[in-house]
């Protein structure tokens, strides 16, 4: 009886192990494909653009001559726009998440709002561009200055708001309830609980969401073209109502030029965009690490 059982088990064991091995192989192939294509793209861009990347390129304005053209207004425009966007999206998004998690009553209205926020995260970005054009650039044109840096930042803030809210909510929900109960038990008010306990604990997760939002915004082109971010700008934004351009728009413009020297400029631009993106991510990872350390300490 037992021997019979054992032989069946043994026979199955070999098959089960084989299946396990096969799955491992499939997973390995999947990651190899993903990483190889990424690496190939990256190497191709490096090969095309590295020769063009120099101080002149980083500090010059665009030009009809590829060798004289530079990336400065686009770099500055992108950094300003993303910075402003975080200023708008972060407080509003985190505030909304706190309300939904900590204060909102659990009823159908809250559920409806939650479902809609999740849906908003999947709305194509061009729709936000149209909204921004009509509302921020036209209706509120007197305040925003029309097709301005402020309009761009506000539109982008709307675009990334669902990402910020959803990730902040996940982070807040992950805070152990015992912490809240302990604080309330000691007589803390709701606000004190949120401020002193929930937020610090949730901050690493909230920051991760903000990194994702920034990464998405810095590569986004369609909504900014819609609201009228410009292609040739030979000055730096000098205020919220100033006109501006961003890196992806400038790259797109160079790619579509007939002269191959401009294509090198585009590749160099992509390298700069990637470098800025990675350093922003690195900064956020560092901040997250700091918060995590503080929690442990």
């Amino acid at each position, binding site marked *: 009886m037992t021997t019979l059982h054992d032989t069946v088990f043994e026979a199955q064991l070999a098959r089960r192990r084989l299946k396990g091995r096969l799955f491992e192989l499939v997973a390995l192939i999947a990651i190899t494909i993903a990483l190889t294509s990424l690496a190939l793209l990256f190497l191709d861009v490096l090969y095309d653009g590295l020769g063009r990347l120099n101080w002149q390129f980083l500090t010059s*304005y*665009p*030009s*009809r001559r590829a060798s004289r053209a530079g990336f400065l207004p686009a770099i500055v425009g992108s950094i*300003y726009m993303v*910075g*402003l966007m*975080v*200023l708008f999206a*972060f407080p509003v998004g985190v505030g909304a998440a706190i309300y939904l998690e900590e204060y909102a009553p659990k009823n159908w209205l809250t559920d409806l709002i939650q479902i809609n926020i999740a849906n908003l995260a999947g709305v194509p970005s061009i729709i936000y561009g149209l909204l921004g054009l009509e509302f921020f650039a036209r209706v509120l044109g007197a305040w925003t200055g*029309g*097709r301005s840096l402020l309009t761009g930042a506000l539109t982008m803030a709307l675009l990334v708001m669902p990402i910020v809210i959803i990730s902040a909510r996940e982070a807040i929900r992950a805070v152990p309830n015992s912490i809240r109960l302990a604080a309330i038990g000691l007589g803390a008010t709701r606000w004190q609980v949120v401020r002193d306990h929930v*937020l*610090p604990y949730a*901050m690493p997760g909230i920051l991760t969401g903000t990194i994702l939002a920034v990464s998405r915004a810095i590569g986004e082109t369609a909504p900014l*073209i819609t609201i*009228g*971010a*410009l*292609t*040739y*700008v*030979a*000055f*730096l*934004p*000098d*205020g*919220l109502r100033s*006109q501006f351009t961003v890196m992806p728009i400038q790259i797109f*413009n160079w*790619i*579509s*030029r*007939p*002269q*191959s020297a401009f*294509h090198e400029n585009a590749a160099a631009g992509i390298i700069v965009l990637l470098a800025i993106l990675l350093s922003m991510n690195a900064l956020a990872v560092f*901040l997250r690490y700091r*918060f995590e350390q503080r929690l442990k300490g």
Partner: protein
Amino acid sequence: MKRLIWLATFVLVLALAACGGGNENATDGTGLSGSVLIDGSSTVFPVSEAVAEEFGLQNPDVRVSVGVSGTGGGFKKFCAGETDISDASRPIKQSEIEMCTENGIEFIELPVAFDGLTVVVNPQNDWATCMTVEDLKTIWEPSAQGVITKWSQVRPEWPDEPLSLYGPGTDSGTFDYFTDAIVGEEGASRGDYTASEDDNVLVQGVANDQYALGYFGFAYYVENQDKLKAVAIDGGDGCVEPSVETINNGTYQPLSRPIFIYVSTKALERPEVEAFVNFYLDNAAELAEEVGYVGLPERAYELAKERVAKRITGSVFSGGSQVGVSIEDLLEIEE
């Protein structure tokens, strides 16, 4: 955490404020300041960009910006009074004129250069050196879809090989003009060809396929002459190859078209806009050729400057694209 957020806010506000301060010391150079807002066609963009760049060197306090939202998109903004100058790769349409009138925008129409459309084949193609408008129509008209699939169906003496076609997408002004000039109806084209809004993709396609045929702007052909061969076009008066000379003197027909800027008269009251427009007309010929287009004859720019000086508004085209506008036609209309 709070301290960090405050610090970030502070740094950002400071950066913006610092930039704002830098701009207040106005007027040196020519003494002009202010801004000129240009938007519109991506075809005209390189010319406007070149002019803006040169103008900016002489007038550092005038902020010229150039956007790309397509000829139609540009006119929408222009007729809403949001821009000063609109780049256009075709004349303004009747519907757009009405939109401008509704908003009280009057405009001056100024041709600034010629753009030639080029029909290209692979360098190994040794049969199609010259094609008539009829040949092209046979290939591109809507009824050719799925029917004309081999070179031999166009002309019996051509090889019995598959015909692979490349052309711009339907959103492009180049597509509108080509269909109008060749098929006879704007927007009428077969749909079974490789379409791309990025002309560089079309260049690659034709360069890698011995039996390919495609069309796009002259500038893309000039940059890729080593990979492509231009087809001479017979518009009824013999074969003419596309070149700066034949486009300029109007013999390359019907595939050369004028490109325009439209200036709002309201904006023209500002001295920096008027200075920019005159600078544009003075330098368009040279700068257009530098970026791959063909300048108009001297006389055309003189007439255009007169229009600016006398504020002659309205469009000389009866609304919409017109095929076969040679430089002589254009001058006659101008006068």
